[in-house]
């Protein structure tokens, strides 16, 4: 019996050895083919954007943006091919693209390899508008109505250039002041941008001498100017007509800016702002105790979605009421009220209309009363998860933005008015 068990064990080992040997022999023959196939599949999109290439060498570069998947150098010196993947579109699924950039820093080929979203942003035609562009991408624009996807695409192309420029492989294109200003505006002026960082502004003509461009924010609580007097400046005003001035390097040069010019710009900006204070006061009065006395506080130095701030003094304590106007779904302005107690914790939260309209990808799930109650007691270190409304991503982001902005504004105004 023991002898039979040994024979069976040896049989098992023998079969294992034979099968392993067969696999090994087959591997010797197929491994080069499999490797060649894998390399061919990897290189296929590269030849798609640079068909005249003689071959590619993969580069290992330092400090490339996270959207850049791989960078390849064309062996014949034609230039580089960069593969990118970005999840900054509307749904958060990955958009993949491949861009060929010549040694003189211009796009010679581009393809959208994967687009997981349903809304058409001209994916057959939009990439072609990038042909011939340098790193400034001055001749390209965001597609209205599909701002998230087209913006994600454009930013990924910008990242492809950034990867090459930061490693000294190509030279950066020179941006015109108008482009620098338009790119700087949503970065330094949060009021003028939606949660994705895309500018929400309308242009108007200014009567002030030296102004080369003037915009009011779509939520009605901010105005920005491109002012030029030999040097170019971006001047931004918030709803309290507090202002900041930046040079083209994004340096804050407010203190050295001509005060008389600032005064002229301020006068004009005041007329462009929406008159929201009295309406906001009526709304916030209902959110705190009836015996409270409301006093409006200037939002000096705050350039986010906070439109008005009121201090409410009552028998039960002092509260700070922040009215925020972030951009929600379809970039519609939402009106959100955040009341903080004197310790900076949320006393109550409300909104004129949480869901402006059904988001187009899915139905949302929201029970408004418990949703609003879920914010009570939160402080500046909140996670942001409480703002999530399943199926309403843009609205969730706007609520989160408003609450973060209220906490930021509290830090700026409560200290001086407490």
């Amino acid at each position, binding site marked *: 019996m023991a002898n039979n068990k040994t024979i069976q064990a040896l049989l098992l080992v023998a*079969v294992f050895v034979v*099968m392993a040997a067969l*696999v090994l022999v087959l*591997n010797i023959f197929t491994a080069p*083919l499999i490797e060649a196939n894998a390399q061919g599949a990897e290189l296929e999109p590269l030849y798609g954007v640079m068909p005249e290439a003689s071959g590619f060498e993969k580069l290992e570069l330092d400090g490339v943006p996270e959207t850049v998947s791989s960078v390849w150098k064309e062996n014949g010196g034609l230039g580089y091919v960069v593969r990118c993947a970005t999840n900054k579109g509307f749904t958060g699924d990955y958009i993949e693209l491949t861009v060929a950039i010549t040694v003189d820093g211009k796009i010679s080929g581009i393809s959208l390899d994967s687009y997981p979203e349903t809304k058409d942003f001209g994916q057959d035609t939009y990439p072609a508008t990038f042909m011939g562009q340098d790193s400034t991408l001055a001749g390209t624009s965001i597609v209205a109505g599909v701002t998230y996807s087209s913006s994600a695409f454009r930013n990924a192309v910008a990242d492809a250039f950034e990867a090459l420029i930061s490693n000294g492989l190509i030279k950066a294109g020179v941006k015109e002041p108008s482009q620098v200003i338009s790119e700087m505006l949503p970065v330094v002026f949060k009021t003028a941008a939606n949660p994705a960082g895309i500018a929400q502004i309308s242009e108007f003509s200014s009567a002030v001498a030296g102004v080369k461009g003037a915009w009011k924010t779509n939520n009605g609580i901010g105005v920005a100017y491109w002012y030029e007097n030999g040097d170019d400046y971006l001047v931004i005003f918030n709803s309290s007509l507090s202002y900041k001035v930046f040079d083209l390097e994004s340096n804050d040069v407010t203190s050295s800016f001509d005060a008389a010019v600032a005064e002229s710009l301020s006068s004009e900006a005041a007329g462009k702002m929406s008159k929201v204070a009295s309406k906001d006061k009526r709304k916030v009065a209902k959110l705190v105790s009836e015996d409270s006395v409301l006093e409006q506080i200037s939002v000096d130095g705050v350039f986010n979605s906070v439109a008005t701030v009121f201090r409410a003094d009552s028998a039960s304590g002092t509260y700070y009421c922040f009215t925020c106007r972030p951009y929600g779904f379809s970039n519609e302005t939402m009106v959100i009220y955040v009341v903080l107690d004197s310790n900076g914790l949320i006393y109550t939260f409300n909104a004129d209309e949480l869901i402006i309209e059904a988001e187009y990808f899915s139905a949302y799930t929201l029970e408004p009363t418990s949703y609003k109650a879920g914010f009570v007691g939160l402080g500046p270190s909140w996670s942001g998860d409480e703002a999530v409304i399943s199926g309403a991503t843009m609205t969730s982001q706007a609520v989160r933005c408003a609450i973060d902005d209220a906490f930021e504004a509290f830090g700026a105004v409560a200290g001086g008015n407490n």
Partner: protein
Amino acid sequence: MENNNLKAFLSNNPVMILFLAACPALAATTNVVAGLVMAAAVFCILVLSSLVMALLGKVSSSYVRLPLAVVVTAGFASMANMLIAAFVPNASSMLGVYVAVCAMNAMIVLKGAVASDGGVGESLKSAVVSGLEFALLVVVMAIVREVLGLGTFAGMKLSFMSTLVVPVLAKTSGSFIVFSILLAVSNCFKKEAK
């Protein structure tokens, strides 16, 4: 008589009866080419495993047959995986891990384990029938899902399908829908065969 045999063939599919190997049948059927390659791979692995196990039947005891069947199936599954990756790379990328998973495919392993009990001819016949049943199911599912779900056939666009596409059929949930319908059809044949 022949009609009854066909009905039995259509209703005795191990995937339909025991849901053995349902995983690759559901996962590898979004494209006709991928379905055909999967069907061919499973057919070959099944027939070769059964053949080897039937040959080993006379010298192996019952308690080593299952481990032997696993070793043999894993070996042939690895070889099939390599051959597909080498010669049909597009199908390989579509099938992903599911060819390698054949090493643990209950239908193949069990078929191999019981093949040792019968003669070589009988085992081969049984393996060929099971392999064809699996192939038929996979190919039919792939055709239905690709044509109705994507509006293509073997990757080629079918212009007349452009307005008739039901995208959910190409998704995972769609594979269960198609599988359920085919299961119902198979049960109809089963009733008639009785």
